[in-house]
């Protein structure tokens, strides 16, 4: 375990020399002054249709996560089929923003775009987690089942009840992620909080930004208070009525997208598929690979590896903040607020703040991704320490941290961190503003240029890279025998 950790640390340090982290000094203070003023003067009246935006954020998240639960559960039951496993790995390898961009071409700004953009990747994630939960569930009820009991009865009465509590717990965590995703979908035009957040932030209306963020923090922080199972059907029906009636979609658009838009340009424009067309296609392909895919992969990996280690270091600092082993109730509340703020502020906004400070390079992206992910894993580990039994005469403070808490949570910490690896890889997608040409930057460019053929090929490459990292992460976890417990992603 120590060797793996040091290996990753060494790799990150080496990559820091390769990475483009030049800091260009600048004069950020005017802009910082405005941001700071915005933080202390939140303006809740600046956003038009604010109530609607909150409602939409909740509605997309609720319906999307509910559908993902249904599909994910069904897929989990069939998870022993290789094709299901690979299929799930593939659909969750694509960032929800990319799903949204694809569906925007087909369905336009209809509620279906937002709901599917959440439901599809989440089904893939939930299928994986639920199947693991059922595998790891207590097997003892199975032993007392009379011989001759049917498969369905066995499943319903012996296996499901045990796993169900875990499902419930995990769904709640997924809903928090769903709310974040739902807000972020506003960046591409869906009418959620992110829509107004992005506009306000882009134009430097920081009082409006802070008001929107505060509302969002409140929604996330109070999730466990308002989300009860009994109220769920009510929420879902409400969500469906709240979703906008769409602008409609036509079959023609779907057919056009699938049979023409995504066909590589040289083949689409060729009269017949002959040698000339194939040569042109080959040139198109090699050009795309050498100028975009390869540099994109390199930059994405460098950024991901450094941010992964950064997130790890951050986690080790953050988790005591919410742990009862280190802080009293008041300190922990402050810790919770700090972590909710860090993990609910979109990485894009964090990155922009650091961009102002250090100028364009990979540095703002590394710090933004590290902090955001450290806050998420720190939260999970901090919660995990609540259940750690300590002896009455155990050490306190730093001694407790280094000699007891850290060694005991370390395997759990590594397991979560490796889980997060592929997530960090996906998140590098939305940091194009920093001028770092990651794969996501090129995907975004292809969509902006209305070149869906390129966009789709690059998304496929991104997905394959994601699956590769996920496989590697699983191998490392298996070798280190890190137990993949609940409440993770």
């Amino acid at each position, binding site marked *: 375990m120590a060797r793996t950790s040091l290996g990753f640390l060494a790799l990150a340090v080496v990559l820091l020399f390769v990475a483009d982290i030049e800091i260009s000094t600048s004069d950020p203070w005017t802009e910082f002054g405005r941001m700071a003023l915005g933080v202390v003067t939140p303006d809740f009246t600046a956003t038009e249709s604010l109530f609607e935006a909150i409602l939409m954020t909740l509605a997309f998240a609720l319906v999307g996560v509910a559908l993902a639960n*249904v599909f994910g559960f069904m897929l989990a039951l069939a998870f022993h089929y290789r094709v299901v496993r690979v299929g799930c790995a593939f659909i969750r390898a694509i960032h929800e923003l990319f799903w949204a961009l694809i569906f925007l071409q087909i369905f336009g700004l209809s509620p279906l775009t937002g709901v599917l953009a959440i439901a599809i990747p989440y089904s893939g994630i939930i299928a994986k987690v639920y199947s693991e939960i059922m595998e790891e569930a207590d097997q003892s009820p199975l032993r007392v089942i009379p011989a001759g009991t049917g498969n369905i009865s066995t499943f319903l009465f012996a296996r499901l009840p045990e796993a169900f509590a875990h499902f419930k717990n995990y769904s709640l965590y997924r809903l928090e992620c769903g709310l974040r995703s739902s807000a972020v979908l506003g960046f591409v035009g869906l009418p959620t909080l992110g829509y107004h957040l992005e506009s306000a932030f882009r134009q430097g209306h920081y009082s409006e930004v802070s008001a929107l963020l505060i509302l969002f923090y409140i929604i996330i922080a109070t999730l466990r208070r308002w989300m009860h199972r009994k109220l769920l059907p009510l929420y879902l029906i409400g969500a469906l009525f709240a979703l906008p009636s769409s602008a*409609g*979609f036509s079959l023609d658009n779907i057919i056009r997208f699938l049979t023409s838009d995504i066909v590589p340009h040289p083949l689409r424009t060729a009269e017949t598929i002959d040698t000339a067309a194939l040569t042109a296609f080959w040139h198109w392909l090699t050009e795309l690979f050498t100028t975009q895919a390869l540099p994109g992969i390199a930059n994405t990996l460098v950024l991901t590896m450094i941010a992964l280690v950064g997130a790890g270091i951050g986690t080790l600092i953050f988790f005591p903040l919410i742990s009862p082993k280190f802080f009293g109730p008041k300190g922990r509340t402050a810790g919770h607020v700090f972590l909710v703020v860090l993990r609910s502020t979109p990485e894009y906004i964090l990155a922009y703040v650091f961009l102002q400070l250090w100028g364009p390079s990979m540095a703002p992206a590394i710090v933004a991704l590290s902090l955001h992910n450290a806050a998420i894993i720190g939260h999970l580990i901090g919660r995990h320490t609540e259940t750690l039994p300590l002896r009455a005469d155990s050490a306190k403070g730093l001694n407790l941290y280094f000699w007891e808490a850290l060694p005991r949570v370390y395997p759990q910490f590594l397991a979560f961190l490796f889980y997060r690896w592929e997530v960090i890889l996906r998140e590098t997608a939305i940091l194009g503003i920093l001028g770092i040409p990651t794969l996501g930057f090129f995907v975004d460019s292809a969509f902006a240029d209305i070149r869906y053929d390129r966009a789709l090929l690059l998304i496929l490459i991104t997905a394959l890279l994601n699956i590769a990292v996920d496989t590697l992460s699983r191998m490392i976890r298996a070798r280190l025998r890190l137990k993949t417990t609940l409440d993770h992603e």
Partner: protein
Amino acid sequence: MFRNIFMTAAMLLGLSAAAHADTFVFTAIPDEDESRLQTRFQKVATYLTKTLGVDVKFIPVKSYDAAVTAFRNDQVQLAWFGGLSGVRARRLVDGSKAIAQGYEDQFFVTYFIANASTGLNESKGFPMGIKDKTFTFGSKGSTSGRLMPEFHIRKELGGAPDKVFGRVGFSGDHSRTIALVQSGAYEVGATNYAVWENEVKAGKIDPSKVKVIWKTPAYPDYQWTIRGDVEKKFGAGFTEKVTQALLGMNDKDLLASFPRKSFVPASNADYQPIVDTGKSIGLID
């Protein structure tokens, strides 16, 4: 619980399939002041409803390409596009026409702006001193923030932006470009002149920190584009009616949404220079 979820899923699909009948829908690219966009453009929709005698609705979009996609998919029939996005939209929709442009759009310009730390000053010719500096464009699909500046950069500095600059970013927005160059996060940038002038008036620009170093030659920019098939839905002569309604819009309050002094006639041919420029730098296939 599961039954509820299934029922809601079914309802969702049903809801989505219900298309709006015969509402004339328009959009505008997100460009300058996005605050209260819905409220401001609702007034334009009300004006058009009154003038055209059909139900007119505005839908907001988040990006240039989203505007083009909505136009292409017939979710909007009329759009206020930039030069490049308009050209792209018309290439994708047969028979679509540019019908009106802003008075200012006949001779639009891009400003190159630089942080004071660069020591660059305004020049008549292209500022060769920006070579190897850090540079930010606006949105990737913008005419004034991307297409035209990139064209001049390639022509004068003889290479793609990522080769001739120390670093290239896409701020995503004209105001953002100004903020980033003013703070020095990027040394040089290219921005829409109208946005610059507005921010100067609003007192958001500190002349000791950022200044204009070059103004590009003029080019045609924003315009109203309408789909070719609207007459099938809204009757013969509808295109002409819409054109007249736009040209006749002289309420200051309405024009301030764009913001333009007035609208003047335009045609697809007016935008040939944009098509040629787009092709020459590989932004249009």
